[in-house]
């Protein structure tokens, strides 16, 4: 099975109204080639799952500025003033999720769990509308799995089968979202032959990856 695709081939699968999860932490480890290609296609009404909304000119923040996003699910939006503005005018919905909870909700979706119990958010507005469960005397919130239609992953080194290695702090949410979407697309900073990544160094096994595109240099 050939997973290596052109940007055009990948874009055929990305449509208005989809839920798209994107890797990166304040745009470090974000697949910018894919982000830009989706801008060029003019995809609208995206529900975006990402740690944050990047910056107005960097990462998924560009989607927000272009008005492509209907709803954001993120832990932090403070570095992109446009997110705050659209949130205040009601043009874009923002669901703020504690960062650790966001990671676990995505992980739960990829791991076949019905949710996770976390103490984070107890006694705060985050618990509103959520089931509280007491386990051995301690309260936890039931946080539900979060799955995307499409995951856009940035790999530092990707072999032609789809095994991924992430450099340094580019890892962040990338290996998590790669487990929790119907279609997982990896942008390779460097594409290598199968076998060039030692199996012990593989961070996202190829079985999670559906498509690979080469990132621009």
């Amino acid at each position: 099975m050939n997973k290596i695709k052109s940007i055009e081939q990948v874009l055929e699968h990305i449509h208005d109204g989809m839920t798209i999860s994107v890797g990166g932490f304040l745009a470090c480890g974000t697949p910018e080639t894919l982000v830009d290609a989706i801008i060029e296609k003019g995809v609208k009404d995206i529900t975006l799952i990402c740690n944050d909304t990047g910056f107005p000119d960097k990462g998924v923040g560009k989607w927000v500025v272009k008005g492509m996003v209907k709803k954001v699910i993120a832990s932090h939006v403070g570095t992109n003033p446009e997110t705050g503005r659209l949130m205040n005018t009601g043009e874009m919905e923002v669901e703020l999720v504690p960062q650790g909870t966001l990671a676990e909700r995505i992980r739960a979706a990829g791991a076949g769990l019905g949710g996770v119990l976390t103490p984070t958010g107890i006694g705060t507005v985050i618990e509103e509308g959520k089931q509280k469960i007491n386990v051995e005397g301690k309260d936890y919130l039931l946080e539900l799995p979060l799955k995307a239609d499409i995951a856009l992953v940035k790999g530092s080194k990707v072999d032609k089968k789809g095994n991924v290695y992430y450099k340094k702090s580019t890892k962040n949410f990338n290996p998590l979202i790669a487990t929790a979407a119907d279609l997982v697309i990896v942008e390779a900073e460097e594409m290598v032959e199968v076998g060039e990544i030692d199996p012990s160094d593989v961070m996202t096994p190829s079985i999670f990856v559906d498509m690979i595109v080469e990132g621009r240099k």
Partner: protein
Amino acid sequence: MIEDKNRKREIIVKRVAKELKDGDLVNLGIGMPTLVANYIPEGIDIMLQSENGFVGLGPAPDEANIDPDIVNAGAQPATVVPGAAFFDSATSFGIIRGGHLDVTVLGALQVDQEGNLANWMIPGKMVPGMGGAMDLVVGAKRVIIAMEHTAKGNPKILKKCTLPLTAAGQVDLIVTEMGVIEKTDKGLVLTEIAPETTVEEVLAATEADLIISENLKEMDI
């Protein structure tokens, strides 16, 4: 009472640094807490966590040595020390919630006498999101608040927080330019007082009920 802004900061971060113990894993929040790293006492070996995915955070790099693949939790270029390790966000917050993080140092908009903390939003004004703060405050073994005692003269240490909480009842210690306040079962206890500062001044700048320790000391800085 100390008025100079820079001197206030220096007193706060120097005093917080003395709370750190050899072998501690520590997460320093953005802003003033970050400066604590500059005052780690000699002979104390601590490991700093950056919640975007590593332990072993080092000093900021100079212009020539910026690696775009290493940023801190505020997206600033960062370095790692020998022995550092990178991981994904689930592992990072597993460390935080799982009882592996010894200390977190954060700023605050408000703290109250129940140990409640508000530091993530002002409704209608500032809604940047909580980022990792809610997990850090719930998960760290020890929560230290490093902040100026008042905001434009208004108390920040209150009987009850009025802003949305970051977490309930998790604060252990408050360090300000006026003193050191411990959260105990009996309430907030002033244990140390800053130089050039009187107890009356601290009480006037604090809305919360404050117990004055019988062993009140001058702030150790």
